[in-house]
């Protein structure tokens, strides 16, 4: 079989497009953002001002590149908004998702499990923009008028819970909606891990006299640890890159670090949508390339986070033989 075009090669080349796309996107953004990376340096991550400069003035030269006077690109507020909203989402979604998985795996009879699970898994099917719409018309008025004022009044003694409750747009709202968007991933993975678990573990613990919940808490859940961590990291990756819902409910703060959990924020992904139009107005092209640098940073975070989660889950597959 010394044919040049074998079926195997054919599928490898055609299927290789999938890998090529990822490489192309990463390489493209490195090249595209390179002028901005050179000019912005480390200040890009540590300074808190995104200013495209005076669009009507003549460009001036700095470090051998033409830029608009007053132009300065720093995204500390984006990093803060992205990480904090993701942190809130993950801190809420992991325990709630895992406990909902416990309910589905242990309290629902096997024949009904698929149907009942659908209620949670449907959350994964709802488009981001529909979450945004729901957040905009239902969640924000409710939280802004009723919940947040109550929270400042009664939980104000906690750090970050005091201060102006705002209008409902902001960090906590974004975190809550993001939590709902990522929770089905955690619930589905942990439920499957619990259901497909080796039954001998459970039976041994029950035989020793442990109650069903003690068995679950001390034997069954710890056995899913790696799956829980893996799906938690995957969920983190999703929350970091979420765009539309966050764009519609976060308040789109500019050059502003959150003071409390009600503060308006922007995330890196939502900032790209909200600023691309105005960045295109910059005749030197530096604004749009700096925005490309935001995309590159987001891209690299996503690659690292998803890569780590996958390696962890592959390892789980190999050690236990279960598929996730």
């Amino acid at each position, binding site marked *: 079989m010394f044919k040049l075009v074998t079926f195997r090669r054919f599928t490898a080349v055609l299927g290789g497009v999938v890998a090529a796309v990822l490489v192309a996107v990463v390489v493209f953004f490195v090249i595209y953002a390179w002028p901005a990376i050179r000019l912005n340096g480390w200040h890009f991550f540590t300074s808190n001002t995104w200013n495209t400069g005076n669009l009507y003035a003549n460009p001036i030269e700095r470090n051998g590149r033409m830029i608009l006077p007053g132009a300065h690109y720093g995204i500390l507020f984006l990093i803060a908004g992205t990480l904090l909203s993701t942190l809130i989402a993950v801190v809420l979604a992991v325990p709630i998702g895992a406990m909902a998985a416990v309910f589905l795996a242990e309290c629902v009879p096997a024949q009904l499990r698929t149907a009942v699970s659908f209620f949670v898994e449907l959350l994964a099917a709802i488009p*981001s923009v529909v979450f945004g719409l729901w957040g905009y018309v239902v969640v924000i008025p409710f939280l802004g008028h009723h919940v947040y004022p109550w929270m400042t009044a009664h939980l104000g003694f906690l750090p970050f819970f005091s201060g102006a409750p705002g209008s409902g747009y902001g960090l906590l709202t974004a975190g809550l909606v993001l939590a709902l968007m990522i929770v089905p991933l955690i619930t589905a993975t942990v439920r499957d891990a619990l259901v497909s678990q080796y039954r001998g573990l459970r039976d041994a613990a029950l035989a020793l006299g442990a109650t069903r919940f003690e068995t679950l808490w001390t034997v069954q859940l710890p056995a899913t640890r790696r799956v829980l961590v893996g799906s938690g990291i995957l969920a983190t990756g999703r929350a970091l890159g979420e765009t539309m819902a966050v764009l519609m409910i976060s308040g789109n703060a500019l050059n502003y670090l959150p003071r409390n959990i009600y503060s308006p924020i922007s995330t890196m992904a939502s900032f790209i949508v909200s600023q691309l139009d105005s960045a295109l107005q910059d005749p030197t092209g530096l604004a749009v390339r700096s925005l490309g640098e935001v995309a590159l940073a987001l891209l690299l975070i996503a690659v690292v986070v998803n890569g780590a989660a996958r390696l962890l889950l592959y390892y789980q597959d190999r050690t236990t033989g279960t598929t996730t």
Partner: protein
Amino acid sequence: MAAASASSFVSPRQRHRLRRRLTDGLGWTVSTVAFLLLGAATVSIFWAIAARGAHALDLAIFTQVTQGTAGGLLNAIEGTLLLAAGGLLLAIPPGVAAGIFLAEFGASRFAPVLRFMSDVLVGLPSIVVGYFVYIVAVVDLGWGFSALAGAIALAIISLPYITRTSEMAFRQVPADMRDAARALGATDSHVILRICLPIAASNVLTGVLLALAISVGETAPLLYTAGWSNYMWNGHLTHEPVGYLTYAIWAFITEPFQSAHALAYAAALLVSAFVLVISIASRMLMAASRRPGR
């Protein structure tokens, strides 16, 4: 607890047992509440969309094109279907090929690399894909906002889902089938395309449906690739922006007009209903293919 503290005749052993029983009850209650919380959120989202969308839905939505922030959504419905179909058309060949390669030639050194990169591609933020296609296709290639640019963005997003489900589908084909075919002298391509593909087809279709649902619901990768248009598609693949339903949700809900809100709710209802139907269909397909004696 009340019983335990009220009576001093309760032995430490009984108290211990009571505490264990209470912890048990508390644990199950917490897990039930966690599930109910998520179920309530799902119901709230669908109720909010269904109630408002049903009010907004009338015949004009399906028969008229958008006029500013009023009129109908015919252009957007057509655009959504066009972009999703185009994206699938572009994504299915490489996605299924990658799935076949991973399942059938998994011993290859390239296979783990491809699987890993496909899985990482799932996590790529969709706006990054949109930005990439915008600069490359819309600006550098000069296509402008267009159906083709939008379809390419959706194809990139669909690829890893189709790859993964195709791999799983081909893996589920019993090895005996391949061995039998090979024993009769069939080649690789014959075994895979004529023997395995018909068996795997319904599971591959599940992945295609999943990709379709994602494509119909995507917004961020289309904003700067497909653009928006009030008119019906004129058949041009480039230099002609296309409207789509998710844009109407995002752009019209923040307009101050009642007519704009109605369009946004109607679009949200159409998109959600479509996604719901596809999710149920793909589940039924999956359940049917798992049934023994298929």
